């Protein structure tokens, strides 16, 4: 049996890698990918706790997180596309005026 702490440790590691990426990377799309990575790290925690406690709630949360991630990716990438159309750049620093 794999102990619960291993799963939690792995999920913390994945979350940290994602958070680091948000700081280090300058490309908007990569930052977005790192946010997905952070979401997945948290999802692992929820599923692990759900499995170990025998309660389905954690998995329902993950289901909702996945739906939110899909909505977020759709709208986020639409924003990135319209910024790219006006600025010809994917750098986050060029998108600092709160308008398209």
């Amino acid at each position, binding site marked *: *049996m*794999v*102990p*619960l*702490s*291993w799963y*939690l*440790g*792995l999920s*913390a*590691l*994945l*979350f*940290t*890698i*994602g*958070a*680091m*990426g948000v700081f*280090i*990377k*300058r490309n908007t*799309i*990569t930052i*977005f*990918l790192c946010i*997905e*990575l952070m979401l*997945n790290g948290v999802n*692992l925690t929820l*599923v692990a706790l*759900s*499995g*170990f*406690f*025998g309660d*389905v*709630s954690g*998995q*329902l949360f993950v*289901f*909702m997180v*996945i*739906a*939110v*991630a*899909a909505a*977020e*990716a*759709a*709208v986020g*990438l*639409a924003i990135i*596309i*319209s910024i*790219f*159309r006006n600025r010809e750049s*994917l*750098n986050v*620093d060029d998108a600092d005026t709160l308008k398209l």
Partner: protein
Amino acid sequence: MEKALFIIIAVIAVAAALNVLIQRNPLYSALSLIGTMAALSVLYVMLRAQFIAAVQIVVYAGAILVLFIFVIMLLNAPKQQLQIDKQKGLRYLAIPLAGLLLAEAFYVVWRVQDIAMPVVKEGEEAVGTTWSVGVALFTHYLLPFQVAGVLLLMALIGAVVLARREGDK
């Protein structure tokens, strides 16, 4: 046996996640993230969350990342041109912050009490099957489910409004 499998999968997941950071081309980063998604889906199966594991593959690997790669391919952005980095400081902040986050997380993990997974009796619907998720979705989680429907509709409208050119009506 099970621990060995966990370690292999965990190494794949972390390596793929690190590769997302290392690659300069966002296309390679996105492809690398597929590896993490697939590895996590294996872990979900090991945690008996069978339905969520399949949804992870269908939605994350099969739809969300497809959309990412589509956008990267369609934009064909020029190679990152030289420019003055406005927030270079953030980069050096990342390492200590990551260290802090990890230390905090592992302090919690270290304090976690190890419990055994509950044993499912023969003939009883296990947690994590399609049946258990479906029933929970319409009993305890009916409101979040409907809100998710509204959210998806809003995302649909928002994305179309944002992505269409101003010119075409």
